[in-house]
């Protein structure tokens, strides 16, 4: 389901194709900037970091034909630059102004279902946000970027086994959250049913007297 970027990248490197560069941009930008924001917190900083990386990517495209996996390369670059930025501004406390549901999920296909899912997904998002930083980033890279263990491991400089363990942890947390959500949901329906039953019996009694 992930688009193959190699033909685009080849076109950029060999033919200086700006349209291909644009296509690449639109394919990757959303995920790159979300990834960057995990680290630096602020949109504006992330925008600047991503722009710089992409511009440099274009400038060095002749040397770029040796890059095997462009996506991993870009994510690694974003991570490195983000960490560099954080280190440089370590003495400065960045106040995160955006709420964590800045990037809202929308199911365009079925708006009714979207409303149904929205509440649940929000709860699930909250569960993920409560995870420790590494687990959170790993989960988001896999879920939102569709990355494999090996790719995530390479970007974050950890072992694939760690990636797997952290993912298990995240899914476990999601399952717990899901169960809790459904428990409340079914409890509500149960109480609704009881209420309906009482009302029904009441009306029946009234009819008796008529």
């Amino acid at each position, binding site marked *: 389901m992930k688009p193959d970027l190699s033909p685009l990248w080849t076109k950029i490197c060999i033919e*200086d194709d*700006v349209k291909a*560069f*644009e296509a690449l*941009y*639109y394919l990757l*930008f*959303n*995920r790159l*900037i*979300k990834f960057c924001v995990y680290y630096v917190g602020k949109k*504006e900083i992330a*925008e600047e970091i*991503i*722009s710089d990386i*992409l*511009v440099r990517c*274009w*400038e*060095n*495209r*002749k*040397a770029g034909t040796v890059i095997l996996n462009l996506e991993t390369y870009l994510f690694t670059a974003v991570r490195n630059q983000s960490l560099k930025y954080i280190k440089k*501004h370590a*003495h*400065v*406390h*960045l*106040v995160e*102004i955006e709420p964590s549901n800045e*990037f*809202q*999920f*929308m*199911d*365009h296909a079925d708006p009714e279902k979207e409303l149904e*899912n929205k509440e*649940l*997904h929000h709860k*699930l998002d909250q569960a993920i946000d409560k995870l420790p930083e590494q687990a959170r980033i790993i989960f988001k890279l*896999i*879920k*939102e970027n*569709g990355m*494999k*263990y090996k790719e995530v491991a390479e970007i974050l400089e950890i072992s694939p086994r760690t990636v*797997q363990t952290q*993912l*298990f942890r*995240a*899914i*476990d947390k*999601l*399952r717990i959250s*899901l169960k809790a959500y*459904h428990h409340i949901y079914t409890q509500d329906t149960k109480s609704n049913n009881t209420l309906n039953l009482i009302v029904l019996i009441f009306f029946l009694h009234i009819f008796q007297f008529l």
Partner: protein
Amino acid sequence: MTDQKFTELLSEKLSGEISADDDQGFMAMLAENEDYRREYESLNTYFQQEDRLYDNIDVIFQQIKERINVVGAKPKPFFSSKPAIQSFKQWYRIAAIFIFGLCTFFAYQFFKANDGADKNTTIAWKKTYTPGRQTSTIVLADGSKVTLNAESEIKYPTSFNGQTREVYLSGEAFFDITKDHQHPFIVHTKNISIKVLGTAFDVKSYNDEHSTETTLLRGKVEITLNKRPAKHILLSPAEKFTLIHAAQNSEEHLNGDIYSIKPMTYYKDDKNAILETSWMNNKLLFKNETFSLLSLRLSRWYGITFVFESAQLKDAKFTGEFGKESLPEALKALQSITPFTYKIQGKSIYLYAVNSYR
């Protein structure tokens, strides 16, 4: 233990890492357990979600496009092997661009000068200056209140016409701006411009200091660096923006300026005693401030010039609070922290370190 196993298989399935054998096992688990089936369905939908596109995605690409066009469609050669003759051509090109740039610059200045004259005749500007030891408050045409600190000057029109409300500040002032979304309020200082819609904030931009600061109390402001007009920085309440002017930094990233955004300094953990705006309550609050910086503030506070006869004193740090103290009382308080001696002659005070060689 099978529940743990289900979590693991579920993770592998959702992430696409599941092996063919495990997949069969997983499907079997789903077949015989309705709860598992429901869990899988919910989480699968969760995993399939598409993100909403980032708002600025188009804008940012345009910016990138401009940057790569400026650099030139010509890529950096993998092996740079420029013959000597070619570099001469390069120099001619660079010289031509430079001269062109100069011409544009002078032409702009020429036109700007004329423009400026026109501006001054069509809008009547007023200036208010507060000398040392005083603060003053003025009300602008739109009802906005501006409180000026000592040795500060503000230039503002008698009435606000046009799309924006603009004023020019040198020194320090606290702004309480009436909300008007149609007409953004802009404060120009030497190094930065601050655009607001309706908020309360403090701006500090003294000529004799090496930094410009903006502290935001309410609302939201957008700061633009005058040297880099394309760059916009958003500030939120309880944040303080500090710009350190060029000179010693070689940070090519921002053309020589470095800026930072920190939380406002609350003095003594009291939410009402905000260091950056303490001057409005006729209090001078300082926290770990160097004597050289503090002396600038004290000179405005007391209307006297501080001269350091011993350079080492400049780096002494002080934390404290001044209100109604007289100058000798204040100096005595400082001396109890770091010993020094002083001599007052006219409007100047000379500071000497103890045990200095004279």
